[in-house]
C-alpha cells in the first residue's frame, strides 16, 4: 500500500501531473524538449496513477486476506508491443484478447483476418476509454504497432536479439508508446498534432515553456522508472523484497512514508476513474 500511495500521491500527482498539464492544457506550441518532457511526464503520470491505484488495492486486499492478480508488470521495460500489452493493464488487455480478439477470429483464420482482428480489438479498446476520436486514434496506433510487429516477426522469423538489440528495441518500444500517449492525453487532434510536431522538431522557433525544475524532476523520475522496470523485467516485487538488505528496506519504506505525508495529496481523483 505504501508503494502504491507513493506512486500515486508523490510521483503522479506531486511531480508529474503539472508538467504534463503545462504542455497539454495550454495553447502554446512546444519545442522538442518541452514536447518530449510533457509527454514523458504523462507517460509516468498515467503509469504511477494507475499502477499506484492497482498496487494500493492489492495491498489493501492482502491486509484483508484476499489475493488479487497483478495489473501491471513493469510495462516500460517491454520489448515489442505484444510484450507491452502483456504488462500494461493486464486485466483489460486480457479481457480484450479473450472477449474481442479471439471471438473476432484471433490468429486462426489466416493473416488478413488476424490483422483485422488486431485492429478491431485495439480500436474498440481505445473507444472503451471514452467517446473521443483521440482515444480511437490511440487504440488504432497500438493496433498498427501490433500489426507491424507481427509482420516483422513473420518476416524475420528466428531472429533472437542480443542484449544490445534488446536495449535498443526496448527504448524504441517506450518511445513509440509515448507517441500514443500524446493522443491519449490531448483533448483534441489539433493539440495532439501540435505536440507531435514539437516532438519531431517541427515547431521551429517555439518559445521554451517549462522551467528548469520540471525538466530536471521529470528526467530523474522517468529515468528512475524506466531503469526500475528494466531491472524488474523478469522479477516480482516479492522476489526483490527477499533480496534487499533489511536496513535498506526499512529506510526506503520510511522515506516513502515521509514523502507521502509531506507531499500532502490534494485529493486528485485517479485518472482511470473517468473511463
Amino acid at each position, binding site marked *: 500500500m505504501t508503494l502504491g500511495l507513493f506512486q500515486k500521491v508523490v510521483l503522479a500527482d506531486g511531480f508529474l501531473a503539472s508538467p504534463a498539464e503545462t504542455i497539454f492544457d495550454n495553447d502554446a506550441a512546444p519545442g522538442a524538449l518541452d514536447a518530449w518532457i510533457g509527454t514523458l511526464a504523462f507517460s509516468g503520470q498515467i503509469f504511477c496513477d494507475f499502477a499506484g491505484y492497482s498496487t494500493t488495492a492489492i495491498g489493501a486486499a492482502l491486509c484483508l486476506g484476499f489475493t488479487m492478480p497483478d495489473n501491471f508488470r513493469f510495462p516500460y521495460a517491454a520489448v515489442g508491443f505484444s510484450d507491452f500489452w502483456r504488462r500494461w493493464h493486464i486485466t483489460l488487455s*486480457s479481457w480484450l484478447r479473450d472477449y474481442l480478439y479471439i471471438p473476432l477470429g484471433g490468429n486462426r483464420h489466416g493473416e488478413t483476418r488476424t490483422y483485422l482482428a488486431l485492429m478491431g480489438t485495439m480500436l474498440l479498446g481505445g473507444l472503451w476509454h471514452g467517446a473521443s476520436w483521440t482515444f480511437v486514434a490511440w487504440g488504432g496506433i497500438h493496433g498498427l504497432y501490433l500489426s507491424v510487429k507481427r509482420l516483422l516477426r513473420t518476416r524475420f522469423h528466428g531472429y533472437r536479439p542480443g542484449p544490445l538489440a534488446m536495449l535498443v528495441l526496448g527504448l524504441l518500444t517506450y518511445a513509440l508508446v509515448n507517441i500514443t500517449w500524446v493522443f491519449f492525453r490531448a483533448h483534441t487532434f489539433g493539440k495532439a498534432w501540435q505536440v507531435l510536431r514539437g516532438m519531431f522538431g517541427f515547431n521551429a522557433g517555439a518559445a521554451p515553456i517549462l522551467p528548469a525544475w520540471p525538466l530536471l524532476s521529470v528526467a530523474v523520475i522517468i529515468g528512475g522508472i524506466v531503469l526500475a522496470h528494466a531491472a524488474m523485467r523478469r522479477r516480482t516485487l*516479492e522476489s526483490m523484497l527477499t533480496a534487499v538488505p533489511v536496513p535498506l528496506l*526499512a529506510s526506503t*519504506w520510511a522515506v516513502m512514508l*515521509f514523502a507521502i505525508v509531506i507531499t500532502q495529496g490534494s485529493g486528485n481523483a485517479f485518472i482511470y476513474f473517468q473511463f
Partner: protein
Amino acid sequence: MPSSTSSSSAGAGVRLTAADRPGVAQPVPMRDIPPRPWRGIMLVAATIALLLVGAWEWHWRTFGVVAPDYNNSNGEWAIQRRRVDSGDGRQTVIVGSSRLLFDLQLPVWERLTGTRPIQLAMEGTSPMFALEDLAKDPHFGGRLLVGVDPDLFFTGRENREGLAKFARDETPSQRSGEWLSRTLLEPYFAFYDSDYALPTVLKRQPWPRRDGVRSMVAVRKLFVQDADRGTAMWSKVEHDPVYNALAKRIWTQFFRLPPRGIGADSPQTVADRQIGRAVQAVATMRARGVEVVFIRSPSTGPFLDYENRNYPRATTWDALLARSGARGIHFEDHPQLQGYTLPEWSHLSRSEARRFTAALVPLVDGTRTPAAP
C-alpha cells in the same frame, strides 16, 4: 515459491497472470509474503518516518507557520456554502476575493451585530460565480456583501473554477476526507499547508533559469484561517521584512502587465460584461428581498496606482453601482475607512482589519435599502 510462478513465456520468476493464458480464466493468484522480519522492519520504518515528520514540522514552525490554520480548500468553502441551504439562509453572506476575506474580521462583526457572517470570499477569484450561484438559490434571503477587488471583479478571473458545483456535488468520500483533514490534521500540524507541500517547496528552490521561459513567481502564503473561514493576514507578512519584500515583489510582477482583455475583447468590454452579470444577479436577488452591498476595501501604494490605471473608477465601480442600483461602500468615500496600514499594499494586517471591520459595520447598516417590490 509455489505454483504462483512460472517459467512460461513471461520468464522465470514472473508470476502468471491472465496475460500468459489466452482464453483461460484468470489464474488463481498466489502471493507469498517474503520471509523477512516484517514486524521489526515496520517498527523501524514507522519510527524513522515519524522522526522525519517531526523534524519537518519543527522546521516549518521555526519558519513561522502556525497551527491551527485551516486549509482554504474547496471542501471548507463547500461547508460554508451549504449553511445557506440548511437554515442559515437569512444570514449575512460575504462573497468577494481576498480583500473581504482578509479585511472583514468575523469575530468583530459578530461582537458588534450579534451574528457571525458566512464567509464565502475566495482569494484570487472573481466573486461573480458565487453571486450568480446565490442569485439562483431560493434559500438565500439574507444580506450579501460583495467585495470588489478591481483586478478580479472586472476581469472575471477565477483561481478556483467549479466551486459552486463542487459544493453541490461533493461526494461522500470527499466529504469524509475533508472531515478527517479538519479533525485530525489541520488543527495540529503546521506543515499541512499547500505552500509547504514537498513539490511546492522543491519547485521554489533557486534552480537555474532556463533562457526564454516566461514564468512568474507564485503568490506565497499570506493568511491564516479559522475553521469557519474567518481569515486574517499571516503575521509573518507583517513582521518579517524579507517575507514582506517578497510579497511586494510578487505583486509588482502584475503591475507590469497590460490590462487584461479576453480574446479580441478589450478590457473595458470585459469589465462591462462582468458588470452586466452582476446587474442581473443583483436584480434577481433584490426581487426576493436580498440586500446587496458592494464593498471596495482599501489598497495603497503601487497596487492602488495599478488599479486606478487599469480599472478607472468612473468606468468600473461607478458604472457598477449606477447600473445595478445597489449601494456601494468605497474606501475613498469614507474617512473612517482610510489611513490603515497595508503591509503588502493590498490587504490589512489582522489588527488593522479589526479596526476596519468595526468602522465598516455601521456603514453597512446605514446603507440598508428597502427591498425591491
